[in-house]
Structures are given as C-alpha cells and as structure tokens.
C-alpha cells in the first residue's frame, strides 16, 4: 500500500529534484585528466626554458630589466600551449560523455577566468615597465589561482582545490627569496597540475 503524499511534501521533493539535477548539470563535466598532466608537463618544460634562457643569463629580479619580457614570452607560450592542450583534451572528453566543449557553459567558464588573466597581463606590463621581475612568479600564481577558483564555481571540487592551492602557493612565493622562485613555479604550475590531472582521472576518467 502506498502512502499518501501531501502537496507540500511533493512540492518540497520536486524542488529538491530540480535543485539536485540543475547542480549536476551545471558542473563542467568535460574535465579531462590528461589535460592536467599535459599542462603540468608543459609547465615543467617552461620552468626548464626559464632556467636555461633567463636564469643563466640574468637574475630574475630587480636588477635585470631584460629578464621579464623574456620570462613573460616563455610563459605566454606555455599558456597558449596549455590552453590548446586543455581545449583538445576536453573536446575529446566532451565527445566521450556526449557534450559539446564549446557551449554556453563553456563560454561562462571562459568569461569567469578572463578578469584574473587580464589582471596578470596588466601587472606583468606594470612590473616590466618598472623593471621589477622579483615578485612576478608569485603574482602569476595568485592570478592563475583566482582564475581557476572562478572556473571552480562551474565545475567539480578538485578545480576549486587547485585554484586555492595556487593562491596559497602565490602568497608563499611572494614571501620567498629569488632562488625559490623557479622551484615554486615548478611545484605549482608543474606539480599541482599533474596531481590535479591524476585526481580528475581517478574521479571522472582520463
């Protein structure tokens, strides 16, 4: 015998179904584990390039006005490669789970991340104009962390954790001396992404 359900209970239950389904559907479910690992490897290559091209020629610091444009060039290239890797991996993943990577939700994700990237570009230009390269690694980590945290609002929890980890790493890097800047870039942009990629792969698949 089935129990009678009052209109109130049914309304509450339907509101719960709506909320739960909308939350599940809003998650950016095209995340790919491979993209995290690839981005981490690209970042490690960028750290190596920075060491070879910049750190051996200049100090990454206040006394090296020529260092920052080179540093920015290497990492802008890394960013373009990383975004391309992310897009391609997510496109493959999206096809596998039956979604489009270029969707209205994808556009929201890109728009959410944009202000932090613009902030990083403006700060890089400002630091470059004043010949202050010392703190740029920490600033980039902070801005990247803010961008990822914003993306995390539309996505799975590991994305938010990644964003917070970058913000914390950025804050710590700002307090550290010159010799720790590149190792921190390797740990954050390389290590964090690889750990994140493996976490995503275990949760959502490669």
């Amino acid at each position, binding site marked *: 015998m089935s129990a009678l359900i009052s209109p109130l209970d049914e309304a509450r239950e339907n509101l719960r179904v709506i909320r739960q389904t*909308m939350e599940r559907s809003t998650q950016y479910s095209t995340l790919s584990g491979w993209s995290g690992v690839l981005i981490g490897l690209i970042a490690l290559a960028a750290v190596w390039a920075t060491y070879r091209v910049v750190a051996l020629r200049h100090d990454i610091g206040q006394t090296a006005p020529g260092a920052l444009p080179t540093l920015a060039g290497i990492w802008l290239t890394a960013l373009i490669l990383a975004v391309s890797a992310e897009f391609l991996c997510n496109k493959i993943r999206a096809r596998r789970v039956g979604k489009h990577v270029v969707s209205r939700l994808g556009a929201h994700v890109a728009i959410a991340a944009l202000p932090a990237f613009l902030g990083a570009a403006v700060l890089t230009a400002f630091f470059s104009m004043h010949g202050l390269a010392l703190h740029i690694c920490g600033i980039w980590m902070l801005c990247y962390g803010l961008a990822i945290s914003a993306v995390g609002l539309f996505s799975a929890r590991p994305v938010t954790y990644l964003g917070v980890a970058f913000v914390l790493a950025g804050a710590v890097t700002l307090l550290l001396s010159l010799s720790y800047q590149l190792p921190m870039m390797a740990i954050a942009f390389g290590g964090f992404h690889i750990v994140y990629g493996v976490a995503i792969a275990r949760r959502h698949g490669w």
Partner: protein
Amino acid sequence: MVAEGAPSALFASVESLDEIIHQKVRLGIMSALMASQEADFRFLKETLNVTDGNLSIHLTKLEDAGYILSRKEFVRKKPHTTYTPTDAGRKAFHDYLGALERIVQAAGQGS
C-alpha cells in the same frame, strides 16, 4: 491556526501545476536543460539515470508540448541528437517553479 485564504491559495497553486512538467523524469529533463541550456541524449540519460526507452518517451512528450527542441546530426557517421529548451519550455518551467514555491508558502501560512 489556519490563516484565512491559505487553503484556497494552496488549492489554486496545486491546480496550476503544469501536468506536462509535473512528472519526475520530465521535470529532471527540463531542470537539466535549463541548467546546461543544451544536452544530448547520453548526457540526459547519465544525469537522470533512466533507461533509453523511458527517456525517449518523456523527451517526445516534452517535444510534442513545444517545451524542447531536438537537433539531429551525424557525428562520425553515428546519429547524435541534442536537446534545447524553447522559450515556451523556459516559461513553463519558471511558472512550475513559481507554483511549487506558492504551495510551500501557502502550506506554511496554513500550519
């Protein structure tokens, strides 16, 4: 104590519930499409945890009611159907949500 007019408001709200949306699977489909704006059959099936046949029946009902639109294409020679909510579907969903909220409010006033 029962507030004056609360039972009639509750009755009116229950009566105003859209019968097309007022079904678990169809409500799930509309909620998913309202959130993601666009989804394909496989995504809806995985999100709602329903069988192909069950999902097909309810998608057809929503499409017949003019609440969703389907777009069929071929991806790697395989049929691929994508669904989007129509303006009528969006309005019906918001109206349904409003009716549910009025039921909760009316029941709260009546208790």
